[in-house]
């Protein structure tokens, strides 16, 4: 590292030349952490902009100045600008305050993403979290394409029923088999949930390639029919540069006036300190990370701790 991060000590006004080499080293460092090149370059540029013309303190190396600059740039990009208190939001919909004049209704969350990233599994983890908070949850099996998708959710619903009832929650599966239109099933599930006093509807969807026009465009109808309060996209920590385009294309798929509300970054337990995907996806869209998936069990769901992520990325 010392070869890349050239050290200049003390009391100097920084120029582009002083920073260039060390920033290149920093960019490489981020690439190794699986940050997409586009995001890594933008972060380095923002650090450069901050630092050109700044005066170094005595005994301060360019290396350490850039580290500090990058740390705060990462913190800034990862810190959400609005509150992400999901439970409060749900409550405000399921039991609105009298002054709001809203009628109570189920809160609808739908999960989208490319193939195999962990949509159904992380939906089940969110369900477990909601059951622990004593909600009544309806899971809607709207992946009507992939073999075994419905049975997969059936197994989860059965397991969660057992676990959840111990916690004081309740869960049921809404399924209509294979081959039918997902948007219609989603709509019916929401209607059913309203009639049967459910608090939350969790809608699973089929995996789709973000470059498949036909499958992506069906998401617009889906959002219109299901009217989700939250659309969460699952992005996988293993994915490289494609994460940027995945995030952008899904964010643009729901028609004008509707965007993604948050990311779930899954499989964080499989990448060690290479957690760059979360930076790439937030960089691409400005949409916050709501949850991290950290394993294959129901309790393996975390909220994002910005310091934890920053430390891993800088290590």
């Amino acid at each position, binding site marked *: 590292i010392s070869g890349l991060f050239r050290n200049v000590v003390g009391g100097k006004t920084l120029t582009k030349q002083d920073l260039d080499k060390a920033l290149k080293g920093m960019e490489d460092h981020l*690439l190794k952490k699986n940050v997409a090149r586009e995001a890594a370059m933008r972060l380095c540029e923002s650090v450069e902009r901050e630092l050109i013309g700044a005066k170094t303190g005595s005994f301060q190396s360019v290396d350490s100045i850039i580290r500090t600059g990058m740390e705060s740039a990462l913190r800034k990009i990862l810190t959400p600008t609005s509150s992400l208190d999901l439970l409060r939001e749900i409550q405000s919909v399921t039991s609105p305050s009298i002054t709001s004049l809203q009628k109570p209704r189920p809160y609808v969350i739908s999960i989208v993403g490319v*193939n195999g990233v962990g949509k159904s599994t992380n939906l089940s983890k969110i369900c477990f979290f909601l059951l622990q908070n004593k909600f009544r949850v309806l899971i809607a099996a709207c992946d009507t394409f992939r073999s075994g998708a419905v049975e997969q959710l059936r197994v989860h619903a059965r397991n969660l029923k057992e676990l959840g009832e111990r916690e004081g929650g309740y869960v049921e599966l809404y399924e209509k088999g294979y081959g039918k239109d997902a948007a219609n099933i989603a709509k019916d599930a929401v209607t059913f949930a309203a009639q049967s006093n459910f608090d939350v509807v969790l809608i699973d969807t089929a995996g789709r390639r973000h470059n498949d026009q036909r499958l992506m465009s069906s998401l617009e109808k889906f959002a219109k029919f299901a009217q989700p309060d939250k659309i969460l996209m699952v992005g996988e920590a293993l994915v490289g540069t*494609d994460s940027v385009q995945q995030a952008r294309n899904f964010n643009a798929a729901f028609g004008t006036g509707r965007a993604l509300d948050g990311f779930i970054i899954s499989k964080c337990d499989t990448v060690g300190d290479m957690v760059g995907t979360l930076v790439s996806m937030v960089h691409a869209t400005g949409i916050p990370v709501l949850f991290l998936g950290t394993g294959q069990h129901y309790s393996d769901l975390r909220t994002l701790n910005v310091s934890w992520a920053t430390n891993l990325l800088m290590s």
Partner: protein
Amino acid sequence: MVLQDLGRRINSAVSDLTRSATLDEKAFDNMIKEICSALLEADVNVKLVGTLRKSIKQSVNFKELPAGVNKKRIIQKAVFDELVKLVDPHAEPFKPKKGRANVIMFVGLQGSGKTTTCTKLARWYQTRGFKACLVCADTFRAGAFDQLKQNATKAKIPYYGSLTQTDPVIVARDGVEKFKKERFEIIIVDTSGRHRQEQELFDEMVQIQGAVKPDQTIMVLDSSIGQQAEAQSKAFKASADFGAIIITKTDGNASGGGAISAVAATHTPIVFIGTGEHMLDLERFAPQAFISKLLGMGDMQGLVDH
């Protein structure tokens, strides 16, 4: 599609250089820089890109190029050779033989496409006259057996699995034994997704392998994988010593450089690529043909003595 964008960029970097009026060292360095940027954006392992940069520089050795040689050809060939080296480890994959049992075991990370690809491959051999079948040794993932069963039924391929036995080692052994007795020629064993950070999962994989003694173990890799590709594939190689790689989801937008890095890291050839979610979306893979097509180097064939 996978690597297409990369190919286009590399190709244009090379032809920009060779077309420019002054082919000096600075222009050469710029070309290498552009190629390396393209590789990094395609998720090729960062260290590997460094090595490749050095190799091209060394094999061209621009300073020492004597006057009068065809610089263009030398540079093109150096780039081409390095890229072929990336995807072609010169290792011969296993070839199943008719009239005996060939056991093939699938391994890989969670969600990479193993179960889907198992059926595709069984079908591939079935249409080529082999008696093929499937064994579901994934007893962990919810709905795994239903998934395999539904796929197998659609493709009319016999399958084995258990709804009650939770030990994948036992299911795998029983399934393979049963099908061997019934004289099946291609027996494909599907396993759960796993990753190197969980030793227990790796131990389980080794135990399944010990129980079914596969003639070939195949690692399935998602074409969108990034910088973890090298570490994960090396760990799978060290534990399961897979002899072939299948890259899936190449119908997506990913460049596939991570998967390519796994090939380089494990010296293991890609044998098939998955090109969609349907049963027939499987293609054979041939590294050199792939690279020359990629680089639009029809005219390169004469230069290359493979």
